[in-house]
Structures are given as structure tokens and as C-alpha cells.
């Protein structure tokens, strides 16, 4: 393979900058210069694990290419090799048909390749304008804010969505942060944009807006998009070509309009599975809703910055019922869950469980059987440094049979503790199946399974769940959804707060939409319509920071 010493696209870009205006300072489209990308025989090992095994793929210039695969299939590893975070053990990348050595992310940036990560790479304490300027990286020593603001405003004016330049990033909702990440890449005039599950924090309407805009840019030949996703809907709506990875190997590739969702899913998991979003796991039609288990009345709470997050919030959950709370993240869901779990003090209002006031003390949790699967369970429901077995005993380590002694027992019996942990690990398929490992060493899906196992092993009467399958693969999602449905069918009341509308539509009996800290819409699952829910999720008040054009 011939290695070229000079990098022609770079030069071309440089020249186009010369006759244009300042580099990146305004969003003038740099002409038709979407770039193509090819991976040839890329392999990468991490110790024993073969993360990528001889992967080749072709991304045409100006195409919208989707990369599908389960967690751990190697999607992230592949794109990280491409943008220079990892060096592949073997293989290489061709950009516009020429081979380049990408040694670090800077090299990738010089080639015009940008990446939007799953986690945000913004500085929350700085403003939108400051974050954009810092990304540009060619700042003069003393900034001319007047001129920069003008340039940024001109850039914003050309974008399909806008953010207030002076707003502090910490005050933006998750969806707005995601938009800022994408704006940042467009501001830098990327010609190939890699997106790692970009819509996980967006409403369906926002996702359509963002992806539609990127799709438009690919059509205009300005941009090539390579998107990692789990959502078939996005692949079919926006993708041109889809490549599926399975266990580090390409499992198939094809044009989206000639590949069915079933085929994609089959390539992903290797067997035929049922993927249609339907209420397969709804309540048995003959079941009667039981008595009210959880009742919230006029609840008010503040967020970390001391501004109201939940206002006059009220809901009821009955035994044998799963109530889904939909909403764009940052509309008070996090605070609601924290209040219910006792992590945050409410300003006013009542929480009643079985008709009795509830303050989320350990005694009350046991008395009423209130258990939970909070989001980010490693942070909110685990002691990361302790073993899986110990974490699985957090609910009952001080009770017989795990411990013996007076009253509540103060002598923990490790043999009992380990025996129970092994049972749960087996039952819920936690991998690796060694309860003595620190729980922080498990993958996200397995932490989720372990916590769910711990909670469901208790006599659950009310289960509070937040984003239970965030970032999980197909198989893990399936197990967790099944377990939740089983718990509900077993008579537990379940409050499910999720940003994933598909999940809510699939599981819930009743769906509430939360916006700006209040319930703005309620509908039974049978008569729920995605578009209507989406409109309420995006309620106009939610977007006061953003000028809709």
C-alpha cells in the first residue's frame, strides 16, 4: 500500500479557506466536499478480547451510513480506531481513496473527521459561545468578542436549530446539549461526521429534526454521516446503507431500502427474533387494576441549582399496573425519582404508599415493599468497589438468613450471602458469573441485571424504575423488559420513567407525559399515539431557550 506524504484534502480545505472567510468562523458551506471512507481489514485486540476481527466497510461520500450492532459488537471500537483514539493492530483506513495514518484525534480532525460522542464533551460551566470557540482551537490571545459573536450568530442563522449563545451549558437540557455537540462539529466544518447514538436523549421530534438536517446536508454533498444506532426506525427513515457488526465481525451490509428490519435484527443477533414494537407485554386483558399503591399529591422539588424542577406534581399507580412517565430528559424526571428514592428532599407535597405517608426510610421500604432500579445504577444503587455478592445483599444483609444475632442481626454470614448471590446471578444471567468480582468491573447491562435481581428478589409491591435499558443491547433489554412485565403481572405497582418512547409504549398500561415538572398529558396505552405524545413531550414551554425557525 502506498503512503502519501501530503494530504490533499487538507490542502484543498486550506485553499478553500483562503478564498473564503475566517476558518470555521462562519458556517459557509465549504462546497461539495463530503469525503468517503473505507476500512480495510481492521483488527483490534484488547488483551484476550478480539474486539475487531478483519472488519472492512465502505462509506461513500455524501451517504448516510448506519452502523448497527449489539453492545460489545465492536462499533465503538471501530470508530475510535478511525478517529485515532485507538491504533488498530492491523488494517487501515482510506479517505477519499487514499490511505492515511491517523495517530491521534487531532489527525482525524485535520482530515475533517468529527465525532459526536455518547457522553457530552462540553464544559458545563462555560457558555455556548465559549464552548464553540474553544473547539475551534485557533483563538488569538485576546478575543474580540464582538466580532466572534457576530460570526457565531451568522453561523447559527444558517442552522436548522439554534441555541442562545450566552446560555450556560449547565442550564441546557440534555437534548440541547446534544444539539450543541452537533453544532460544534458543523461549526468546525466537518466533512465526515461520526455519531454515536446521537438521539438517545432526544424526543422523537427532536431526533427527526437533527437527523433530518444531517440527512439534508448529506444530500447536498456537504457531509458524510456514519451513525451508530440501536434504533431501526432511524435506520429506515434516514439511512442509505447499513452495516451490521456482530462480535467484532461484519455480519452484513446492504442498502436500507432493500433490507428489512427483520433482516437487520437477524444480522445483529444472529438468530431470528421478534422486533416489532407492540404491546406484547401488556397486562392480561382480564386483570382488574388493584388498589392505589403509590399516590403523589402536589409534590414540589428543586433541582441542584435551586430552581423549581417539579411543580404541583400528582399521579397514582395501582397494584398490577405499570405507569409510564414519558418526557425529554431534564423536565424533572431525575428529581422525581430522587425524591421517591429518598435522595432528594421535597419542598412540599405528599407521597403516600398504601395510603400512608412515605419518607423513603429503610423501614418504610421494607414495610411497603418499595424497591427501585434507578438510572445509572452503578452510581445510584451500588457501592462500586464492593463485590457483586455484597451489592446484591445491600437490601437484606442485616436480616436473617444473611445475618444472625439480636433483633436485626449484626453478624453477617458470608456463606449465606454468597449462596444467595450465586442463585441470583444464575437466575438473571449476570456475566461474568462470579459474584466475588467488584461490581464496577461489570458492563452496564450486567450491573443493571444485578441490581434488578437484587430488587426483584425482595417482596416487591411497588417498583420505581428509571431508564432501565439505557445503553443496553438487545438481549439485555429483552430480559429486563420481561422481568418488569412479570413483576407487574405478579401484582406489583410499577412506575416506569423513561426517555425511550418505544419502551413505554411496549410496556406501560398508562402513559403520562411530563414537561417542565408537571404532567401535561395522560393516555391509556391502547389509545396512545406516538405523534400526540411527542407533541406533548416537546411542549412549547420546554424550548424557551431555543428559537425555532
Amino acid at each position: 500500500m502506498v503512503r502519501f506524504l501530503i494530504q490533499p484534502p487538507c490542502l484543498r480545505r486550506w485553499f478553500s479557506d483562503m478564498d473564503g472567510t475566517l476558518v470555521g468562523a462562519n458556517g459557509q458551506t465549504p462546497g461539495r466536499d463530503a469525503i468517503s471512507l473505507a476500512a480495510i481489514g481492521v483488527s483490534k485486540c484488547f488483551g484476550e478480547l478480539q474486539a475487531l476481527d478483519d472488519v472492512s466497510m465502505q462509506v461513500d461520500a455524501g451517504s448516510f451510513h448506519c452502523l448497527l450492532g449489539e453492545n460489545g459488537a465492536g462499533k465503538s471500537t471501530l470508530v475510535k480506531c478511525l478517529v485515532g483514539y485507538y491504533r488498530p493492530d492491523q488494517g487501515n483506513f482510506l479517505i477519499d481513496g487514499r490511505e492515511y495514518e491517523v495517530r491521534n484525534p487531532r489527525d482525524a480532525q485535520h482530515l475533517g473527521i468529527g465525532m459526536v460522542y455518547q457522553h457530552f464533551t462540553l464544559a458545563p460551566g462555560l457558555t455556548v459561545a465559549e464552548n464553540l470557540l474553544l473547539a475551534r482551537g485557533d483563538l488569538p490571545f485576546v478575543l474580540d468578542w464582538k466580532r466572534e459573536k457576530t460570526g457565531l450568530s451568522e453561523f447559527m442563522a444558517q442552522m436548522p436549530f439554534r441555541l442562545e449563545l450566552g446560555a450556560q451549558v449547565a442550564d441546557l437540557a440534555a437534548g440541547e446539549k446534544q444539539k450543541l455537540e452537533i453544532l460544534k462539529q458543523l461549526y468546525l466544518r466537518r466533512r465526515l461526521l461520526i455519531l454515536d447514538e446521537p438521539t438517545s436523549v432526544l424526543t422523537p421530534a427532536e431526533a427527526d429534526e437533527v437527523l433530518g438536517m444531517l440527512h439534508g446536508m448529506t444530500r447536498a454533498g456537504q457531509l458524510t454521516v456514519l451513525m451508530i444506532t440501536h434504533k431501526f426506525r432511524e435506520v429506515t427513515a434516514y439511512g442509505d446503507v447499513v452495516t451490521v457488526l456482530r462480535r467484532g465481525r461484519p455480519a452484513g451490509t446492504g442498502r436500507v431500502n432493500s433490507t428489512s428490519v427483520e433482516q437487520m435484527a437477524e444480522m445483529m443477533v444472529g438468530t431470528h427474533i421478534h422486533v416489532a414494537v407492540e404491546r406484547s407485554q401488556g397486562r392480561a386483558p382480564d386483570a382488574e387494576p388493584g388498589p392505589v399503591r403509590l399516590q403523589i399529591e402536589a409534590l414540589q422539588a428543586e433541582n441542584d441549582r435551586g430552581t423549581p424542577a417539579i411543580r404541583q406534581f400528582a399521579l397514582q399507580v395501582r397494584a398490577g399496573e405499570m405507569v409510564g412517565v414519558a418526557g425529554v430528559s431534564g423536565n424533572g424526571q431525575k428529581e422525581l425519582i430522587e425524591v421517591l428514592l429518598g435522595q432528594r428532599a421535597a419542598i412540599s407535597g405528599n407521597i403516600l404508599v398504601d395510603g400512608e405517608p412515605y419518607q423513603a426510610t429503610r423501614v418504610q421500604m421494607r414495610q411497603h415493599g418499595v424497591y427501585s432500579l434507578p438510572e445509572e445504577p452503578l452510581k445510584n444503587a451500588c457501592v462500586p468497589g464492593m463485590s457483586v455478592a455484597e451489592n446484591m445483599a445491600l437490601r437484606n444483609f442485616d436480616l436473617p438468613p444473611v445475618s444472625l444475632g439480636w433483633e436485626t442481626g449484626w453478624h453477617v454470614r458470608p456463606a449465606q450471602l454468597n449462596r444467595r448471590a450465586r442463585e441470583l446471578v444464575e437466575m438473571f444471567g449476570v456475566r461474568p458469573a462470579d459474584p466475588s468480582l467488584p461490581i464496577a468491573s461489570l458492563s452496564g447491562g450486567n450491573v443493571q441485571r444485578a441490581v434488578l435481581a437484587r430488587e426483584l428478589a425482595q417482596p416487591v409491591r411497588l417498583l420505581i424504575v428509571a431508564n432501565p435499558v439505557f445503553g443496553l443491547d438487545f438481549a439485555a433489554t429483552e430480559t429486563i423488559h420481561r422481568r418488569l412485565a412479570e413483576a407487574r403481572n405478579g401484582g406489583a405497582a410499577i412506575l416506569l420513567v423513561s426517555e425511550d418512547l418505544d419502551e413505554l409504549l411496549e410496556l406501560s398500561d398508562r402513559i403520562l407525559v411530563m414537561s417542565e415538572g408537571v404532567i401535561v398529558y395522560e393516555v391509556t396505552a391502547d389509545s396512545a399515539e406516538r405523534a400526540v405524545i411527542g407533541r406533548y413531550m416537546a411542549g412549547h414551554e420546554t424550548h424557551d431557550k431555543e428559537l425555532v425557525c
Partner: protein
Amino acid sequence: MSDASGGIAVGSLLLALLGGAMRVSTPFLFVSLGECITEKSGRINLGLEGTLVFGAMSGYGVAYLTGSPWLGILAAGGSGLLLGVMHGLLCSLPRVNDIAVGIAMMLFGTGLAFFLGKPLIQPVAPTLPSLVLGGWSSNTQIQEALRINVLLPIGIVLAFALRWAFVHTRWGLALRLVGDNAAAARALGYPVIPVRIAATAVGGFLAGIGGAFLSLYYPGSWNEGLSSGQGLMAVALVIFARWDPVRCALAALLFGAAGALGPALQSQGMTSGYYLFNAAPYVLTLILMSMSWSSGRSLAGAPGELSLVNR
């Protein structure tokens, strides 16, 4: 006026407080500005108390040997810079906690200053000049109160300059980025560790100058009881000032006034209990800290990488 005598007493007490604020606040000001820069980069340097004492000693020594207080200031700053670099390098080692290193550096700085400063207790070094702003008044008390040291206006100008620089210069933005989200800074190619070391070094430089003020102006001599925790209180002050240099300056003046309360009351003829008022700055520290830390909320304006911030 019917209560003329009371009025005079209160008036002169306020004058004494003002004068005291001008006099006593300078070390608070310099240390807090230095700490502000360091904390903006995402690290806390609790060792500034040691830097302050070491700066006082080295500044006094050099001023005595060279006869120039300005060279003393420079030497104090330079030694502070070295201590800052030391803190910065130590904290850059993997799994080293900046607060623990800070406490070690505080003990190291004061200990070394006491050890090297033994021969400096007797000699008399030249002191810094002062600006007489009260010449228009025939009242000696007013003249005395408005006799300020040259470092105070320099520090106040510096505070405004820093506030400007944090927003309007490349370095300022990079510093805040590194302090706010190190991962993002790395992803954008900004050097996190060097920025932090530099910020700690500059912070040490300013704290050293604050120390030189103690030995070269007020009280104006070197002894082991020179500092009474100004370096530590300045850390609290930065938090109270919400990492804003200009608010640091105001808070420094407030702390200065509190520190002057005891002596001012004493000069008013109060003979008993003024020791209690000498504790005013410490009480103020406690009150301000408990006011600024409310439960369940994160601190607005805090650099996200700071180890006292949970985000």
C-alpha cells in the same frame, strides 16, 4: 448633636476599621487571587498558607540582604512560584489527592520558613513604601486610615484584570475549560496537566507576594507568629466569592475589616474581651462557609473538576 461623644466613637471606630481593612486585607487579596486562578484550573492548593509564610521569610531575607523591598517582593513571588510548581507536579502523579498534598505543602512551607528564617528575626529589613491619600484632611486619624500600601491598588487592579482575562483571553478560556471538564479539554487538545501546573505556579507566585506584604509592610518584621491562618482563610474566601476575582477583592476587604475589629476596639479604649473580637475573621469564615454551603445544591459557578464539587 445630642450624642456627640458616641458619634465620634463610632466614627473613629469605623475609620479604624476602614484603615484596618486597607492594611490587613492585602495578604487575603493576593492569596485569594492566586487560589482563584489555581481553583479555576480544577485544583485546590491548601498549601498557600505555607507559601505565604515562606514568601514572608524569603521576601524579608532578600530585602534585608539587598536593601530593596521590591527585590524582596520578587523573591517572595519566586519562592511561591517554586512551591506552586512543586504542588502542581506532585498532584500530577497518578492517584495523588490535591488536598492531601496541600496540607503537606502547608507544613513543609511553614517548617522550612521557620528553619531558614531563624537568623532573620533580629535584623531589620527596609519596608515597602506607602501611598498617603489622606493629605487633604487635618485629622490624623483619617490620614492614618488612608495611608495605604502600594500592593493594595496593584492587587485590586489585578483582580479586575483577571476577571477580564478569564473571559477575554485564550489563556483564560483554556484555564476555565480545563477546570470545568478535563475530558473535554483533552478531547479538544488542550494540555490539562501543564495548564494546572502553570495555574498552581501562578497562584503560588501571588501567595508569596501576599506573604512578603506581611514581613515588609504590616506588621513589617519577620517572626514565626506572622501569619494567623490568612492563607487558609483565603481558600474559604474564594469559595465565598464564587471564583470571581473582583468578588475576591471585596471579600478580602471584608475579612480585613473583620481582622481589624479587635485592634480597633482596643484603640477605642476597650480593655477587656477584645481577644474575642480578634477571632472575628475566623467566626466570619465559619459563618460565610455555612451560608454558602446549603444542603442538596451544588455550588453555582464552581469549576466542575474541583474535588469539592460533586457533579
